[in-house]
Each structure stands twice: as C-alpha cells, then as structure tokens.
C-alpha cells in the first residue's frame, strides 16, 4: 500500500483512494468519555464513573474487533419489528 499522507490520518483511520481503512482503535480515555458524555448526551459524570466507564468501553471495543471485521453481505438486521402489532 502506498504511504498515507499524515494529514489523512484520523486516529488510526485513514482514507486512500476513496476507501476507509480501519485499524485497531486507540484506547478510550477518561477525557474522551467526559467529552462524549457532555457533548453527545448532555451528561456530567463523576470522575469515578468516568474512569470505570472508560475501562468498560476499552474492553467492549476489544471484544467487538472480530465482529467489525465480519463481512455482512446483504444480511439485514435481525430485529423483532413487525409492521402489524402482534403479527411477526
């Protein structure tokens, strides 16, 4: 693969020839959790919760790596929605 221009690197995600490549993500920090809670959810978290939440998120992200690499083809989500209530 050709060298990636540093300006295109965002975390460990970069764009080359219109394709988005994703490598292993950086660890989630307490600062990230604090910012996301405030900016995305409007929540202010206690420092102890922020640290614990960051720890959980890092574990989750690690456990989801294999899932993220699975080719999903044309499969739709297996939700339980039914257009007419009670008639799945």
């Amino acid at each position, binding site marked *: 693969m050709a060298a990636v221009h540093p300006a295109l690197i965002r975390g460990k995600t970069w764009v080359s020839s219109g394709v988005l490549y994703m490598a292993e993500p950086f660890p989630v920090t307490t600062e990230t959790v604090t910012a996301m809670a405030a900016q995305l959810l409007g929540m202010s978290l206690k420092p102890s919760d922020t640290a614990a939440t960051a720890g959980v998120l890092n574990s989750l992200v690690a*456990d989801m790596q294999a899932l*993220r690499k699975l080719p999903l083809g044309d499969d739709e989500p297996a939700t339980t929605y039914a257009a007419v209530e009670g008639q*799945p």
Partner: protein
Amino acid sequence: MNAAVPTCREIADDVQSRKRSAREVVDAALARAEKFQDQFRAFTRITPEIARRHAKRVDERIKQGEKLPLAGVPFAVKDLFDLESVPTTYGGKVFADRIAKSHATAVRKLVDAGAVCLGKLNLHECAFGFTGANPTFGDARNPWDPSRIAGGSSSGSAIAVALGICSLTLGSDTGGSIRHPSALCGVTGLKPTYGRVSRAGGLPLSWTMDHVGPITRTAADAALVLKLMAGADPADETSSRRPVPDYRAELSARIRGLRIGVMHRWFFEALDAEVAAAVGHGLERFVALGARQVEVNLPLLEETLGAHRAILFSEASSFQRPYLAERAADFADDVRPLLLAGLFIPAADYLGALRARRIIRREWAKVFESIDVLITPTTPVTATKFGDATADVPGGPKPLVRAYLDLTLPFNVTGYPAISIPCGFSKAGLPIGMQLAGRPFTEGTLLRVAHQYQQETEWHERMPVLAK
C-alpha cells in the same frame, strides 16, 4: 431423592391426593425461606400473605375437583418478574416503587397450574452481572460456601433451589444468568429457545436476547414446568406459535444413537482440571448409554462474543437511559458504568451485531445438522470468592466476565436452548455444571439427555451441609 427435597411432581401428587394441604406445604417452605434468609440472602422479599392466599385457593380448587399439575408446589421468582401488587425492584433502588399491576405471563401460568409463590428472589442488580453481589438487598451467597459467589444474575433463584426452600424458581438468562448460578449452586437450570417462553411482565436487560426459564432440582421437573410455561402470548410478539410438546413424555426414550457434539476450541481450552474431568466423565456416561461422540467446529465464536457485547450493552442502556438521566447515583457502583458505557456503542456496531446474528445462525445451523446435542462445561471454574476479579485457568488468569460467560453467551446470541446440570464436585466441595445445548426447539431432547444422566448419577441430589 433426598427426603428433605421432594420434587415438584411429588409435592403436587401429595397435595392433589390431599395427603397434605397446600397450606401445610407452603408454611413449611416459608419457614425454611425465613430460616436461611439472613445467611444467604436468597430473597429480596418473602411474601407470606400472598403465599397463604394462593395456598388457600389451591386447596379450595382441589376440593372442587380440579386437577392441578403443580398443586401446592412452592415457587419463587427472580425480582424482575411481575408478581401482582408487589414491587418489581430489579434488585435495586431505582425500581423499588414499581408495583406490579398483574402477574408476568410465566408467573400467571404457574399460579394457574396450582403453584404457590413464596416471594421475589435476589439478583445481580438489573440482571447486569454474574456475582450476585447486591448492595441493596445483601449479597446472595453460595449455599455450598457462603464466602463464595452464587453466580448470576439469577442468584437467588439457584440458591433457593439448592437450599431446598422450593423445588422450582423462575430465572432469566441473557448471557448465562440461569445456567451460571445453576452450575455454581449445583442445581438444574434450563434456558429454553428464544421465544419458547413469553418474556411479558419481566423487566428487560436485552429484549432480543432475554430468555425466561425454570431452575429446578431435576430435569424431570424442568420438563413438567416448561410444558406449563411455554407457548404463544399476545403480550410478547416474539413468543413462538409452535405447539408445545409434552416434554415429560419424551424423558424415557433411549439416547442410543444420539449424536453428542464436542468442540475443544473455545469450550474446553482453558478449564480447571477438576471441571474438565467431571465433564469428561459425563461424556463417557453418555457414550456408555449408546450415544455417539462427534467432533465439531462451531464457527464465528469471536464474532458471536462481539455481537453479544454490542447487543447487550446497547439494549440495556437504551432501556435504562431515562433512569440513568434522573437517578444515576441510585444504581449500584458496578452496574452504573456498564449502563453508561452502553450509551457510547456506535449504532453501526449494534446493527452490525444484529446483521451478524443472521450469519451466525445460518452457519451454526449447518454444524448442528451433524449433532443432536453439544456438550460443554457450563463454567470453566467453580464458584470464586467475592471480590475475585480473575479465574485461574490454564494459560494464566482470565477476567471473570470472560471465564464465566464465554461458554454460555453464544446460545443467547443464537437463541439455541441450553441446560446446565450438576455433574460433579471439586475437592473443595463445590458443584460443577455441565451444559447441553441443541437446535432451536429441541428442549425435549436436552431434557431427555439430562434426565437419563440424572437417572444414572446422584450429583443433583446432594444438599449443602448448611442446608441440612
């Protein structure tokens, strides 16, 4: 059978034939529940008035000539199922004032069949954990060693059966929450196929992976109870319309020729030696009964783990978001960060997991064409001490959440039925559980295999010294 712990069937026969009244049976069970409550914390609430009212009604129905398959059988329910007029606390402070207006469907079916509810059972708060440590209602403790965890999240459900308080409890299972405490407490726990038993009237952890099932002392009792609990329910659109078989009628059929699958990778890789030996002996027993061992290789297990994480955390946090916004401080300290973390799972991961689920289901179905039952340990180690963070397994310490749930959670993602039955004890006197899983809606096969094993062994009859 140990005389101190009659089966559901034996109790029902006695009450139906009026050898004993339902009231007598229930009074004895209530006394036992009270006796052990301080030490083991099986219950969040014992409901003697309701139990005696139910018992009186059962005795009246029998006098009127009704045949009740669970006549006077005491039971209790994990405190996330609704019991009319009683708070459904979810094991914590946040839901403490949520008074149920009616019974959950599964509870109602058991009461209609003559069972008598003793109360609500302790759990890991919000069903989001596997230790049973509970700051609101007290830590649910293992009857075989109170310094150890009972497993969870249906902790009290397994404890109450292990202590002989009742021979039937209700649990829910989203990653192993029926099978895990059943294994650690030495009782029988069945997670039916997704949709086999209505989820209506139970507080959700994960709508698409929650399963409702019985914890009993024997597989025969589980067969009796499942027949009564299962079936379509207008209140749960995911409940199956398939006919419900008479599981008890299948129990005695021979297992000769049955294909029992074994998968070493993932399920037998990092096991305590005593657990490996006990499950190995169980497999030998099935082979001696005429079953055929088949090596299999279930695909996509790492992806299944990832899907479980994405679905569980996303759905749990979606349900709890309003409560987190208003009462975050009232959640247990070990549960709150889990719920907060779920708010940050990308929607693309959640939907990817729901898409992956179809692929996993398709690929697993191919493998299960070659076997009738998959045998695995339920857990790779026996009950750990409160406060332990890792399990000592070959290859080095493993985080408990991975050690305890990796072997059970794949069957929540696929919705396949699975049962845990006692298959031995460690030198320290702790129970060991064996898991049997099958194709969707083959509970009859699993119960038959489990029953035949229990006809040949006595592990399920053992009682903790502290309960005698």
